């Protein structure tokens, strides 16, 4: 039997899914993390779903954290289903969030808050996937669903390559 790390063991790389299951492709980050956990593909990093709860990410800005990869749906002026990686340092938020709550997470605001608190800032990368639809539905659009395994593969590759 494989050695099982304690639940509280410190992992240094995080793959974090954000989004909302109920708004179709807004759930892509959650689906990717769900797939990774269900298939035990997270041996070298910790994967978890933050949903829209940016505050749960904030506590991972500690000395031991080498990198954080956020997986999320994003409006990036690409064809539906296409994706790109970027560092949070490379972008500005255009989103008009009224504040911060467990339903109003914005990773860019969270990073800014961590900086102001004097937390160590690891490299924070984002895998941004252009949605095909944000309608009220509990499943992904066929466009993104058909490419789910591709997103999983590139996300794992990114978080492991460092």
């Amino acid at each position, binding site marked *: *039997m494989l050695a*099982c*790390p*304690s*639940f*509280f063991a410190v992992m240094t790389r995080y793959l974090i899914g*954000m*989004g*909302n*299951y*109920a*708004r179709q492709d*807004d759930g892509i980050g959650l689906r990717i993390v769900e797939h990774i956990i269900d298939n035990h593909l997270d041996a070298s990093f910790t994967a*978890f*779903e933050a*949903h*829209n*709860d940016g*505050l*749960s990410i*904030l*506590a991972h800005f500690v000395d031991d954290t080498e990198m954080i990869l956020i997986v*999320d*749906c*994003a*409006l*990036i002026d690409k064809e539906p289903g296409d994706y790109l990686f*970027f560092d949070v340092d*490379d*972008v*500005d*938020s*255009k*989103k008009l969030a*009224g*504040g*911060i*709550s*467990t*339903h*109003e*997470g*914005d*990773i*860019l*605001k969270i990073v800014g*808050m961590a900086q*102001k*608190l*004097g937390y160590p800032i690891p490299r924070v990368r*984002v895998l*941004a996937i252009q*949605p095909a639809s*944000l309608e*009220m539905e*509990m499943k992904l659009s066929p466009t993104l669903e058909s490419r789910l395994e591709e997103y999983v593969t590139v996300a794992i590759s990114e978080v492991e390559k460092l």
Partner: protein
Amino acid sequence: MTAQNASIKVHHVTRVEGHGNIVVDIKNGKVETCEWRVPEAPRFFEAMVRGRHYSEVARITSRICGICAVGHTLASCKASENALGMRVSKQTDRLRRLLKHGENFDSHIVHVLFLVAPDLLGAPSVFPLVATHPDVVKKAVLLKKLGCDWASLVGGRSTHPTKVVPGGFAALPGNAYNPRMATEELKALKQMILDAVPMATDMYNVLLSVAGNIPNFTRETEYVALVDDAEYGLYDGKIGCLMPDGSREIVDVADYRSVTNEWVSPLSTAKHAKHNMASYMAGALARINNNYDQLHPEAKKVAEGLGFKAPCFNPYFNSVAQFIEVVHSAYMGVGYIDELLDMGLQDEKPVEPTKFGKGFGATEVPRGILFHEYEYDTDGFCTAGNCIIPTNQNHANIQEDMNKLVPEMISADKSEQEMELTLEMLVRAYDPCISCSTHYLDVTFKK
């Protein structure tokens, strides 16, 4: 502008979960409009569960809320177990109670320290507090992480838990393969909770220092919450309906519809509820008013220190009640871990159905009492479902509070700005979870 002539239109009250609007119009000292409006679209979860196997239903209804996902999962499992004649083990019962306290701790920390504290500290959001109160924010972040780890360890993950299934648990706590390893995980969790208690004490001192900024407003109403002979009503029990005169009606969960009496308001896409009065309140204040004597002694000390006396009729004290529950949940969590360690964890399989029919389940989520009801056919597929969430039960009470509060503010000659803030604080005090809003990044690349 003075209170004699004011027009308040708050679209999408901030620092609440979901979207609600406040509309108040006052002309020559007369209230022409005073409305709490909920414009969120219905999401039809009751329709989604129809035709689904009992093993899937909790995972679907958990998605009703990303904050109260543990509570929805527990209420759903309890309703299914009631319908299917499944009686869970003592170990499952204790693990679920431990999990419930983890969710309560997590959610209340976020609400009190991140969403309400800015009002009491005179800030528009938590962001300015990072500069003025960095130590408070840092401790709040650590407490939030503990709540998240706590629920994740027991439930598999804090949002939409995976280990809780009808009939029991799908896996032991943590990453454990066997009871011995799970025991070590629970011991580690216990130590983390104990280590956090001093930080919670620090937060108590902060709250105490700003308690004078809590609006002085009272309105007698009915308080509805779970009551349980075994403990402070949270995971299980009957429905306690406490009236302002101190009398209390106890109702079986199976008769929950006789309490909720849902009705449709033209101001809202969400249904309203009422029982013995025009409205009732659910949530931490309702729980404490119904269960004060069963608070953990350490939580009672905090309540006394904060000047809290049950029954309390000030809805703004719901946030104070939540903080008292944070302390209660921390100590109760430790108590349940000790009990589980004393019992000795076993590798148990979930129990199987013994019948098929209709069942009911209730549990308290951070925002109040939650009801689930399902009916299953003889193959275990759901034929009907009904879920009544606490925020819907609170909408009418928020409206009734506003109806009393606005004239009082006019009499006190409050400015329009003061009135607007006080009304927003009222809504926030209820910690409404109106519904999940969409979330996505919208970015522009730096040149």
